[in-house]
């Protein structure tokens, strides 16, 4: 495929006419056809495409659900049951949307830990990475508000607990909460505004995704070695290589997604949410959706209201600092023998926190949550900065080509100099 042209030249007269007025064809060509992709990418690099697919899937199913859903506290629960029982294929739309949210988070967590492992957040990709964290925050807000819409017991009490987090803010907390609710408790005005925002936010996510992809196309993709593309031989063109691989990965992911939708559509939800919201009774065991559990565990680990809220928000805020907290000059964990061990301990601690978040906050669960929470922050604030100084990384290969082909001449690649990273530490 090395004969692929790297610059786009419109062939037809209309193409030329259009190109001189709106150069979108050449933009698509340079971004998704000729764009140089490191030749050693693994399937971990297909999750970006999977995430775009999931966002589109949520928007399509969501827009159709919104046609049959009624955002009113007296009717919302009924209207969701109406979708499930009366609307043609309504059950499918809803199960796709509800499980789609979970699949979205499965993909985003893999994507995020891929970043952590291969050091993709380091220079020159800090802005790209920070945009990603912003997308994650918007996803959390969207999923939280979506879960309120069916107006079941978990919807109502989840909304109550999460909005009450803001009451921990000194002095103005109570006022902020009543502005969130539009009343003196979670009620109809709350449901209305959550529906409005739940509809809006995915489109804002879409906007940030465009910035994210734009920021990606400046330095190009990172890769398992963490070293930049140095010559055309290190890369292959996006189309067909990445395009086909991404489509294949999306199809495999759809099988996984379909398994949940068709075989266990309610497994990831809570039975309590099929009980209509009742402001006089809290379910005996309230837990958020699985994708919030680690953060929920951190909230509960701190036996102080304000402290717990601060710890929970800090758990994500600290991600923003990661490009500067990690002092190692080497990106890829594959060449960082010490960090590799800490990375997997960190993954285990995150999974442990998730499990603890699903348990009642009593007895030894609390103690373990506190230890795990402490470790979570130590990982970012102590281990990451210190390791960069004390660790002796393994020797890096001279090029991506060498890392896949061994030290010898390799096969086809991109035209030389098609892409060179502006600044590289690798």
């Amino acid at each position, binding site marked *: 495929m090395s004969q692929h042209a790297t610059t786009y030249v419109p062939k037809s007269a209309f193409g030329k006419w259009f190109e001189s007025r709106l150069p979108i064809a050449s933009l698509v060509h340079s971004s998704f056809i000729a764009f140089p992709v490191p030749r050693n990418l693994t399937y971990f690099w297909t999750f970006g495409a999977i995430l775009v697919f999931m966002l589109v899937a949520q928007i399509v199913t969501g827009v159709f659900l919104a046609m049959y859903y009624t955002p009113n506290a007296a009717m919302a629960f009924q209207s969701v049951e109406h979708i499930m029982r009366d609307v043609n294929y309504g059950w499918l739309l809803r199960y796709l949307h509800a499980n789609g949210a979970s699949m979205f988070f499965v993909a985003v967590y893999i994507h995020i830990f891929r970043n952590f492992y291969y050091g993709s957040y380091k220079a020159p990709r800090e802005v790209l990475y920070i945009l990603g964290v912003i997308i994650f925050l918007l996803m959390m807000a969207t999923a939280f508000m979506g879960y309120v819409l069916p107006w079941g017991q978990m919807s109502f*009490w989840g909304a109550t607990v999460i909005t009450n987090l803001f009451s921990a803010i000194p002095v103005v907390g109570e006022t902020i909460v009543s502005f969130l609710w539009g*009343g*003196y408790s979670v009620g109809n005005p709350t449901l209305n505004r959550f529906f409005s925002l739940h509809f809006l936010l995915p489109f804002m996510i879409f906007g940030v995704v465009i910035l994210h992809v734009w920021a990606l196309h400046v330095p190009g993709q990172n890769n398992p070695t963490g070293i930049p593309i140095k010559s055309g031989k290190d890369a292959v063109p996006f189309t067909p290589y990445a395009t086909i691989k991404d489509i294949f990965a999306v199809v495999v992911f759809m099988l996984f997604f379909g398994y949940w939708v068709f075989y266990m559509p309610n497994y990831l939800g809570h039975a309590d949410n099929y009980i209509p919201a009742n*402001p006089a009774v809290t379910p*005996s065991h309230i837990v958020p959706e699985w994708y919030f559990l680690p953060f929920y565990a951190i909230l509960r680990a*701190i036996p102080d209201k304000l402290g717990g809220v601060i710890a929970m928000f800090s758990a994500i805020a600290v991600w923003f600092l990661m490009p500067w907290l990690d002092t190692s000059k080497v990106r890829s964990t594959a060449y960082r023998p010490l960090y590799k061990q800490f990375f997997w301990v960190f993954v285990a601690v995150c999974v442990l926190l998730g499990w603890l978040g699903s348990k009642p906050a009593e007895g030894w669960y609390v103690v373990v949550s506190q230890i795990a929470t402490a470790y979570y922050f130590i990982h970012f604030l102590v281990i990451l900065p210190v390791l960069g100084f004390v660790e002796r990384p393994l020797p890096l290969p001279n090029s991506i080509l060498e890392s896949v082909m061994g030290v010898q001449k390799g096969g086809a690649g991109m035209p030389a100099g098609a892409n060179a990273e502006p600044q590289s530490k690798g």
Partner: protein
Amino acid sequence: MAETTTHVAEPTRRDFLFIATGAAAAVGGATLVWPFIQSLAPDAATVAAGAPVEVDLGPIAEGQIVKVFWRGKLIFVRHRTAEEIKAAQDVNVATLRDPQPDSARVKPDHAQWLIVYGNCTHLGCVPLGQQGEYHGWFCPCHGSVFDTSGRVRGGPAPINLPIPPYTFTSDTKIVIGQEATA
């Protein structure tokens, strides 16, 4: 700003206009945002729905807790037993997280009636009555414990269950949402 003109010590007419325009835009922007933010606050209908509610205490048996709503908020009306009152009074107030004597939480001569908001002061769940170490309330969400005076005795809740405004109109009737006008 001075750099955009030349390096003159005196502010120019252009500087003045520039600052004046910027200030007008900032004030205008802030003014425009105000009604949008304000629209999020509890609206007139919600505020109006906060009219006082009357509760007949007659049918509430000793030891029973009844739930009522005022302004969309849950309120517990608890008919305390003699032991519960005694337990609430026999506490060294200084040891409490949110120190308040029981007498400050009930109306004089009506110590058997405890009227408190029914949402946990941690994150708003409904605590379960007659449960927990002090048999007041226990919150199932994150384990806050309240005593028979509704005071926080354990767990993450920062303050006692607050007391709504209410007044006795007779020995067996209260009106919630209305302070006594002596």
